[in-house]
């Protein structure tokens, strides 16, 4: 691994692009995620335009709860970037405070989401009810899966950081976790108005 460690630091003897492997890898992974969510948005737009009738977002969905969720996710994005700043500044206590906040906010997001889903199920709205709810549950469901993935990655990183705080790659990995988390936030930034507000 040490040969790669040399490579990871952007070069050493290797002719490289100067971007650490981890960061380039995460950005490539985010490129494929952009294509995934772009397909889902295209499906939503295509089905909505070609449908004879489509309910407006606020008629079926709980806009205040959605807005609250957006604020929660944006806050978690801020705490994530602060956690990265603390990691760069080698401030262990600060890092664990902010990464803890980020994880807590992610759980809050999922809890609010589950309330929303439960409210819909109680009113008998399931994915099979009509095409609107099929789109709603699929898009928000896949986004929630990505939030869960983010929680797993961030908590794994936090645990790994306890023993490997001085590992040369640690700050880079926090940055990569941050990049992924900000991407999940950006997807929600587009998803919230698309489903709830139009």
């Amino acid at each position, binding site marked *: *691994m*040490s*040969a*790669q460690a040399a*490579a990871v630091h*952007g070069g050493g*003897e*290797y*002719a*490289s*692009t100067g*971007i650490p*492997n981890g960061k*380039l*890898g995460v950005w*490539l*992974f985010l*490129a*494929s*995620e952009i*294509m*995934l*969510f*772009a*397909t*889902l948005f295209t*499906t939503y737009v*295509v*089905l909505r335009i*070609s*449908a004879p009738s489509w309910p407006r977002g606020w008629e079926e969905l709980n806009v205040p709860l959605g807005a609250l969720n957006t604020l929660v996710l944006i806050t978690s994005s801020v705490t994530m970037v602060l956690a990265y700043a603390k990691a760069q500044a080698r401030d262990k206590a600060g890092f664990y405070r902010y990464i803890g906040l980020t994880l807590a906010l992610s759980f809050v997001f999922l809890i609010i989401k589950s309330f929303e889903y439960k409210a819909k199920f109680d009113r008998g709205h*399931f*994915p*099979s*009810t*009509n*095409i609107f709810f*099929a*789109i709603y*549950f*699929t898009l928000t469901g*896949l986004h929630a899966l990505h939030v869960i993935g983010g929680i797993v990655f961030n908590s794994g990183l936090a645990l790994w950081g306890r023993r490997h705080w001085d590992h040369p790659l640690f700050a880079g990995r926090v940055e990569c976790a941050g990049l992924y988390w900000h991407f999940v936030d950006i997807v929600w930034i587009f998803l919230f108005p698309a489903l709830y507000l139009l």
Partner: protein
Amino acid sequence: MNSNAHASRHEASFWSRYVFSLDHKVIGLQYLFTSMFFLLSGFGMIMLLRWQLAFPGHPVPLVGGLISRLLPADWAPGGVLTPQFYNQLGAMHGTIMVFLGIVPLGVGAFGNYILPLQIGAPDMAFPRLNMMSYWLYLPGGLLMLASFLLPGGAAQSGWTSYVPLSIINPGQTVWLLAMVIIITSSLLGAVNFITTTLNMRAPGMTLGRMPVFVWSELVTAVLLLLAFPPLEAASILQLMDRVAGTSFYLPTGLVVAGQALKASGGGQPILWQHLFWFLAHPEVYVLILPAMGVVAEIIANGTRKPLFGYKEIVGSMIFIGGMSFVVWAHHMFLSGMTPALGNFFLVTTMIISVPSVAVLTCLIWSLKGGSIRFTTPMLFALAFLPLFGIGGLTGLPLGLTVTDIYLHDTYYVIGHFHYVVVTGTIIALMGGTYYWFPKWFGKRLNDFWGKVHFWGTVACMNGVFFPMFIQGLAGVQRRLYDPTAQLHNLTTQPMNVVSSFSAWLLFLFQIPFLVNIFYTIFKGERCEENPWEATTLEWACASPPPHGNFDKPPRVHRGPYEYSAPGARKDWIAQNAPEAA
């Protein structure tokens, strides 16, 4: 040096060295043997299917009794294939050969093993990710094969699984799950390939000095990275349609077998075709690009001469990669898509045919002024040129909207894409196996049996696929369980018999190849480390290379194909050979 210390820790257990290995070479070989297994299983399916095409309704000889006992009663009673089993064989043949056979062979096996060596890297950028991509590919593939054991049988609506048929038919749910797993595996592989190629090239190895094979794998990885996610999303939507009762692809008012289908409706069947072909066309370029890379390597080595038009070939590959995202709907000219879009995709399809022709032209011009050695890998590479030419040329009438009206969904299409994939990619990858076998196992494959395998395979492949053009012109549709049930297929029915016998003969000709491989691995005598006297970096280290490949990163001084340099002592100079004094 640090890589040796790293290597010794690695020798610890059998498991970490062979099964859960982080070494790109071991993972490459794992991909090689697994994809070979899947290619043979997909090929075996077509052996059965060809019997039903040649002699519809007659019990299958030899294995007929075995099948009727092994399989559920209603699939092959008395050895005669039933339509649903026929459809399963057809759908799984396509899926297994494309997603489990050729892509893992061309990208997983050759790419994983050869790419890091050719750019002088110690290993892949993310070894754990590399291991994880194999260990997602294997279960995904086995899940796909296991879908035959489901009560309703495997997927039976074609490898393209057009909706609503694929939502009504049994067996599709497991197909979709296996597809999502395989796609995730390919995505991880693509991230690994691009990062390694960009960030871990040996000092001095600028992008202009990378071998053509590395360029082809890089463009392939970009295609995998950006084209697979749409199919993953579309598969998830289809999975929801089948499992959660949504109806993304089911329009309102469907009546199936007399009863109204209870689905909420409002879906668009054409949407699946758009999303599927948005992947599937870059996918077919993922199939052909590594083969072009392998052929370019072998031809440069076999003619002892630098490739003709290195920049043109690499430029064409990049142009193909870029254009492949905007040509997909030439598969859908007659699918109810707006005819106006047909004109747009006609023009983009014709534009993308130019770089493919350019690559082929440059490879043929590379022969001029060379000193051609007719070794076995060179024979395969040379056979690739005319046969891929036929594949490319027969794409013209299919790409043209008007002639596609008649030829769409006929055997002409099957002949076209098999000439590109079978006599194109598979022939090239077979040549690559002969070429890089000394690098993988330190032993050369037997040359005599190599030539027997070559001549037999090329002859039989043409015997199987050329009659399909004749059937296609007569209007024989594809995926017919019993072609003789329709009058317009009767005249060309003998062509089915010719194809079937050639296909079985082709299967027999693969036996010397397999025996040759396994015999040479265990009993072959070792050969020198650079038997082909090749210049690229993978030959600058031991065969098979130790863990960590190079003692220290090789320093690259020149382009990849410095053969017959004027005034040099030998007719080849390795990329990392120090500057001549």
